[in-house]
């Protein structure tokens, strides 16, 4: 990736896919919390005004309404800023969605630190941790537009609860246009034998860039894009541990409870190897844009490469 690489806001791919599906299936409805603009649902509202259900600034009700719509045979895509959707309505997500086993798609928009300078109130770097412990929710953090489109399509066809984590921070195209999302399956983006990097969302392209830096030093890194945080790809993790000996994870989420933790849970119980978990280091982020903060927390390509070098020194 250089200065000329086009970057994409994955919300655009999200709404494009959602509208294509809604045109095919009139059970699909969108539910939002006065977030028509930030969830980019203006086009959806213009085409299907009745099927855009705006409950106002009321996330607990929004999630409950989603569950009720599913009871009435609709397929609701419940959209709101991820920080409020996952945090404010967590008990509704647990009881009305997960425990009730209903067919609702929770769409956490502008997740991670996408709201940048608005600060930690608006950051959603806890959502993997909060939702990963709830049985039955498939948690997906796509890395680019192709994966976003594919994940939305998969979610619509899957009868069950899904959490789609959609960023607004620009990302390059990574996966091929016809990419197919598979729950519980990672995509190997490049092969390597010295270490494995596992990333998702906005960190996948940064991990790839770090792998390229290392390659010039003769270090080869396997890079796995692991959009499916739950279920997790145990097979790919165990293979990575056994075949490359060390694992580095990167995510736009707290280092506690997220992708790194999910990987570590598999690693320590099946094939223990040294790991390094990169993410938001257990603090409320200082003021800054998402990209500034990712760099600040050591997740620039050079920062990730440096962490990889340190991790390699711990290799048995």
């Amino acid at each position, binding site marked *: 990736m250089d200065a000329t690489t086009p970057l994409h806001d994955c919300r655009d791919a999200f709404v494009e896919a959602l509208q294509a599906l809604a045109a095919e299936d009139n059970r699909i409805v969108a539910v939002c919390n006065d977030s028509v603009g930030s969830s980019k649902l203006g086009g959806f509202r213009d085409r299907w005004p009745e099927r855009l259900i705006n409950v106002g600034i009321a996330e607990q009700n929004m999630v*409950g309404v989603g*569950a009720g719509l599913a009871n009435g045979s609709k397929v609701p895509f419940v959209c709101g800023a991820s920080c409020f959707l996952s945090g404010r309505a967590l008990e509704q997500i647990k009881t009305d969605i997960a425990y009730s086993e209903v067919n609702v798609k929770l769409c956490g928009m502008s997740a991670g630190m996408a709201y940048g300078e608005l600060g930690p109130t608006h950051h959603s770097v806890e959502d993997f941790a909060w939702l990963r412990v709830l049985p039955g929710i498939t948690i997906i953090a796509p890395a680019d537009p192709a994966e976003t489109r594919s994940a939305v399509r998969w979610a619509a066809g899957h009868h069950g609860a899904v959490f789609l984590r959609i960023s607004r921070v620009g990302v390059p195209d990574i996966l091929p246009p016809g990419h197919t999302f598979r729950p519980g399956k990672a995509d190997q983006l490049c092969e390597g034998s010295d270490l494995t990097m596992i990333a998702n969302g906005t960190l996948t392209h940064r991990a790839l860039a770090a792998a390229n830096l290392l390659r010039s030093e003769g270090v080869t890194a396997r890079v796995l894009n692991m959009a499916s945080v739950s279920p997790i790809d145990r097979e790919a993790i165990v293979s990575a541990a056994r075949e490359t000996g060390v694992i580095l994870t990167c995510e736009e989420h707290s280092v506690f409870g997220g992708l790194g933790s999910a990987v570590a849970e598999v690693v320590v119980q099946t094939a223990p190897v040294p790991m390094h978990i990169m993410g938001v280091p257990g603090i409320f982020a200082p003021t800054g844009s998402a990209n500034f903060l990712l760099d600040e927390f050591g997740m620039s390509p050079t920062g990730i490469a440096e962490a990889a070098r340190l991790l390699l020194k711990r290799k048995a």
Partner: protein
Amino acid sequence: MDLASLTETARRIRVSDLDTVFAAGAGHIGGEMSAIDILTSLYFGVLRIDPNNPTDPKRDRFVLSKGHTACALYATLAERGFIDRALLKTFLAPHSRLNGHPNRVKVPGVETNTGPLGHGLPVAVGMAKAAKLDRAEWRVYVLCGDGELQEGSNWEAAMAAAQFELDNLTLIVDHNRLQQGASVADTNALAPIATKFEAFGWATAEIDGHDFPQILSAVDQAAVVAGKPKCIVAHTHKGRGISFMEDRVEWHHRVPNRQQYEQARRELEGAA
């Protein structure tokens, strides 16, 4: 169902609830007794439901938002034929389908899992909205507690229901004036409830929640105000039907001892 049959059915459900709570050694008997006449009216006089086809898309929906009174719902579902009466004997037993709070996956006739308060009305708003989108005839009924209205999520849902003009949605408030630890008035006084809902754009009615004709006429479709959801404030008595429990806050979730159980049984049988 005529008045005598409703009265007898409610009496049987009360006996069944008492027996089940006594056998299990746990339950929320006070709020169950206050709700049973409303449950009986809905299940035997209002809801268009079929125990042989509990997921019929065209069925009316009932949501027990005060999920801690699950035992009364189970006793009613057994009386209505949704579950086997023998299943009540498993209430709260290890691996029983009859948990302390209702579970839609395990119990036919349950529409959504409840227990934490303030969940039923938002889900019911979604159901009623789904019916509106389909221009379907089925209706949605919710029963909540009065203390439960202290949960803010109810008022989020109340705003949305009025905004969406959900005149296919009826909320019945079991206004027994007592919550777990004290009276509602001494905790977060909510009364008068009806005027609050009116201010939120709802149609309202105040009834005696133990009077079958009043309950049935308040929920009758003829009483629907076009474009408005309806809140029925049902004035009830916690522990209704068992003299030493009536209007006593400590019977929120106390379990009768053998002597109390036998007295309660005699009183309910005497009502036959």
